[in-house]
């Protein structure tokens, strides 16, 4: 995980202060990758540019609520994903679902809709952020540990298991390791995350996935 850089922090400060040069700099820095992200899903370059334009407008609109501790690139990508989703839904390419729409991470700038499903477990937005941050730090810590040891195989293993959701057998075949090795990595990883989460005194029902193999 790349934390926000000093230059990103300074840039957003300058933008908040209304500096046009800083805004121009942000656009120049990020428009290429945002365009590449959006264009891969759209048939029209012109439409892709419109979505990127909406992304930048969305960023400025949300700036009062933007948390500087969140990496700028990640935040911009989440806004772009939201704008792209909106566009594709209008085009009829994405299904219209009855509940609160939008990719996760975009809700900080999107006002809550009136049709909000009743939550079986009510927790404030602030509480959820604390819980999520605890898990982020735990995962990040473990990945840094593996990286530091040059244990790239374990990172790949965990990423396939949890990000792609692949079963152990498929992971083992893809990485040319035994299923037992995959299971060991999974068990070890979850155990370390549980330890980190317990130290934060967070309840089990927040992250049930961590306890499935306990």
């Amino acid at each position, binding site marked *: 995980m790349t934390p926000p850089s000093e230059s990103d922090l300074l840039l957003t400060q300058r933008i908040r202060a209304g500096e046009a040069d800083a805004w121009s700099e942000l656009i120049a820095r990020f428009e290429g990758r945002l365009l590449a992200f959006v264009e*891969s899903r759209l048939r029209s370059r012109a439409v892709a540019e419109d979505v990127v334009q909406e992304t930048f407008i969305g960023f400025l609109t949300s700036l009062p609520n933007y948390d500087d501790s969140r*990496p700028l690139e990640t935040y911009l990508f989440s806004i772009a*994903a939201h704008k792209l989703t909106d566009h594709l839904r209008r085009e009829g390419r994405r299904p219209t679902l009855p509940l609160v729409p939008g990719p*996760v*991470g975009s809700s900080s700038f999107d006002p809550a809709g009136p049709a909000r499903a009743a939550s079986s477990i009510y927790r404030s937005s602030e509480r959820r952020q604390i819980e999520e941050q605890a898990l982020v730090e735990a995962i990040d810590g473990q990945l840094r540990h593996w990286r530091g040891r040059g244990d790239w195989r374990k990172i790949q293993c965990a990423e396939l298991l949890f990000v792609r959701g692949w079963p152990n057998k498929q992971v083992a075949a893809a990485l040319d390791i035994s299923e037992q090795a995959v299971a060991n990595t999974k068990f070890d990883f979850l155990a370390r995350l549980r330890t980190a989460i317990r130290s934060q005194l967070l309840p089990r029902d927040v992250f049930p996935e961590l306890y499935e193999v306990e």
Partner: protein
Amino acid sequence: MAAPIRQADLEAYLDEALPADQMARVERALRNDEELLAKLKAIYSRRDSGVHTLGEIWRRHRLSCPSRQRLGNYLLGALSDDEEDYVVFHLETIGCRYCRASLNDLEKQQAEAHADVEQRRRKYFQSSAGLLKK
């Protein structure tokens, strides 16, 4: 036989985080598969209740994404073998759309920079080639 569409795929679909071809595949499947659509709705509900999966959190925070500098070094061939293998894995096997977009942007910038260099070299040549001994 096509790979099954898993829970993690649907989560990534909701976040516009799958590679473009896989996004299209999920969209096509959702049009005809009520069960798949029901699973998608269930993920919405789960998110609304504040229950997170590791994968969602990992992807949302890009916890294993190489930095842009590292992607640039990858293009320059300046990474160790292990680091390069990981970048390729992250792009091709994990299919990180954000990193793919950054890489495409870096490649384009490099190509444009290369075009500038070529133009400059051509200018040097044209301004000096007449001095070559015949």
